[in-house]
């Protein structure tokens, strides 16, 4: 187990390096820092002095990868690549355009993001699995058919519609909860309940249909026939045998998402004014704050790789036949 963990962690290193190189290439090679400065300062009416000042403020006034002017190890370390990209591995993300430390900002914004993402995730999973089991229990009946039609219809509606429609109906017409905003402590619940419910409803169509397919594939297996043949009621077959065996394909899609919950949801957070990482990213995109976007890309990939690792471990918990070697 330990050897396996170490080997998997070692596998992750070249991928992280690859991600790092891609972000570096995207942000500093496709466009030079001069281009970015010109864009931010306005394409016309920009003096070379202003560009130099902009670059110096952000630490972009260094050579890209090789500083021949520096002494000793500075040849490598006193470059944009080292100070902006390699430093991300140790959690140093530099400063945003407004001068704040990005790493610190990420730590404080993680809480609100999780407060939305975790309940949405857990509740969504529960509702979708129950709903799909219900459809499978009544498979090939009118209930199953209309359930699938409903799922396809719900999948075809834009996520923006759920948010805009939900805000309008619940907050504006019924006045049940505030339209947007956030506060710490127990008070947060009244701000969180609507985004969580909308998040669950928005995702229900696609995930129910997916789980239904998984369960239907499982239900034609031999062991299910055996279980029925020995006289078990359909309810027991479904919940005790099928559900457990369907866990492997479900886990494959679900566990990998868990670490990325930290990143929050771009749409939900920005519509509901939640000060989490999702709205942080969206603000950065709109303000063209390249340092923040770069950091979020890197963190997102790290979390995804952690998710892949967790998926492998979850298999051993769900299925005793799987042994990690």
């Amino acid at each position, binding site marked *: 187990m330990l050897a396996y963990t170490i080997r998997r962690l070692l596998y992750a290193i070249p991928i992280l390096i690859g991600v790092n190189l891609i972000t570096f290439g995207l942000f500093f090679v496709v466009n030079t820092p001069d281009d970015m400065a010109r864009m931010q300062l306005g394409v016309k009416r920009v003096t070379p002095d202003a560009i130099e000042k902009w670059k110096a403020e952000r630490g972009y006034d260094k050579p890209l990868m090789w500083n021949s002017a520096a002494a000793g190890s500075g040849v490598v370390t006193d470059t944009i690549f080292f100070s902006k990209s390699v430093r991300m591995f140790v959690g140093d993300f530099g400063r945003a355009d407004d001068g704040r430390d990005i790493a610190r900002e990420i730590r404080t914004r993680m809480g609100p993001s999780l407060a939305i993402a975790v309940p949405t995730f857990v509740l969504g999973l529960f509702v979708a699995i129950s709903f799909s089991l219900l459809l499978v229990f009544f498979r090939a009946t009118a209930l199953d058919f209309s359930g699938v039609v409903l799922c396809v219809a719900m999948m075809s509606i834009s996520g923006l*519609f759920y948010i805009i429609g939900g805000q309008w109906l619940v907050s504006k017409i019924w006045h049940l909860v505030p339209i947007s905003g956030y506060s710490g402590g127990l008070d947060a619940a009244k701000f969180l309940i609507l985004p969580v419910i909308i998040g669950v409803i928005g995702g229900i169509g696609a995930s129910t249909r997916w789980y239904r397919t998984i369960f239907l594939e499982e239900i034609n297996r031999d062991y299910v026939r055996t279980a029925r043949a020995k006289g078990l009621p359909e309810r027991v077959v479904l919940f005790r045998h099928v559900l457990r065996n369907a866990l492997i394909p479900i886990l494959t899609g679900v566990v990998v998402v868990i670490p990325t919950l930290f990143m929050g949801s771009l749409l939900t957070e920005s519509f509901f004014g939640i000060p989490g990482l999702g709205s942080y990213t969206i603000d950065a995109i709109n303000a063209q704050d390249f340092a923040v976007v770069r950091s979020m890309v890197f963190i997102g990939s790290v979390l995804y790789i952690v998710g892949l690792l967790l998926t492998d471990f979850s298999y051993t918990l769900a299925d005793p036949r799987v042994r990690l070697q």
Partner: protein
Amino acid sequence: MMGLAVQPLLLWSDALLFVMTAVIVALALWARRQDALRAAWARVAKNSVAMSAATVLAVFVLIGMLDSLHYRPRLDTQPGATAQYAVEVHSALDALLSGLRQRSEKTYSAPLATHLFSREALENSVEREFPRLKHGGAHLGENLAGHENDIALRLLFGAGAGLAVWLVMFAALRRRYGVEFKTTLKVGDGDTANGAEKDAEKGAAKSAAAGSVLLTLLAVFMLTGVVVALADGYHVFGTDKVGQDVLYLSLKSIRTGLLIGTLTTLVMLPVAVLLGILAGYVGGWVDDVIQYLYTTLSSIPGVLLIAAAVLMMQVVIDTHPEWFATTAERADARLLALCLILGMTSWTGLARLMRGETLKLRELEFVQAAQAFGVGRFAIMHRHILPNLMHIVLIALVMDFSGLVLAEAVLSYVGVGVDPSTISFGTMINTARMELAREPMVWWSLVAAFSFMFALVLAANLFADAIRDAFDPRSST
């Protein structure tokens, strides 16, 4: 020199769209000669839900195609002088809808309204009133009492005209195909076929599908008739902030949605297929490199990678304004770049599927036989592996479409979508969103954009499901 009345203009996306259509037609002709593929298409053709979804999609595609024939209209000049052409770019759809495009109001007006949405101070009056619209209900004159009757009349007239056109078409088809059509109508009306023989059942399924196409066409015709009759005198979906007709904007958005939904998959297709087959068939270090490549790319969260790439693309476009002659060309370049970026971030899934399937095919007898005969590697990949992967490509193409149409709206909201001057569902939603806080609310732009998007995506989803069921060998059992 005498110039043409218009100067045709081929935008890059138009060219790609027409090339794509040509390729699809060629592929369809090729598929007709393949027994397995013909059988699969026959299964789709017998599925009545799929066929009516396909009819709806065909209407959308027709609108998108009309909107892709671009030209620059000729400016009025002295006779004999060299022809001058306008800077703005129009399409055949614009010409068809010139009434809608030109009849713009001052600002917001509700659907079918006769007055503006907000009060304004009128001339020679101290009170603020709702001013009369310039075009909406202008034919009514001062006699506003007839407003509701007029709408009801137009509704009836439009629906009747649609029905009449449909009946003419139906009669023509019936004369052409005769007896077969009687069964069609019967089954289409809901009678179940009680033939015990399989052939009769097949025929019934086929004519049920034909019946559903006819019914869908009837709905489309009647809807079109109603909308045309109403649009002649009113703004059917109201007008937006600068007074543009929302119906016109919705129709123009269709092309953008179709382009993003299809071009994205198409630009990534060669890369995904090539790398997937190479990784699966050649193996060794090639496999390792390709796997590393797509694992790395897919570990970056999609939206963030797209956002980063689009931000960078914006910098490139903004720092090189000299590349584009007209704003339409710049918007077009941005649209294509967006497709390219979306494609580059999403090819990994298809490549992985291709690799897995190739690994399986490599071990099958016919490939081994070809190897034993000394057929070269590339010939095997091209002749024996690729044709057996085409069903996966087709399924991926149709399954991705609806997701991409929905993604466009979200990306435009995030600020990394199409150019703000490009009319799309995303830009419509994004501008209308600002007005939700108004009291009373301006809802019609949102409703129009969401309804058009829903119709397009639902039809695509239903059609894609049928394609997958017909072509996926696993699900046909």
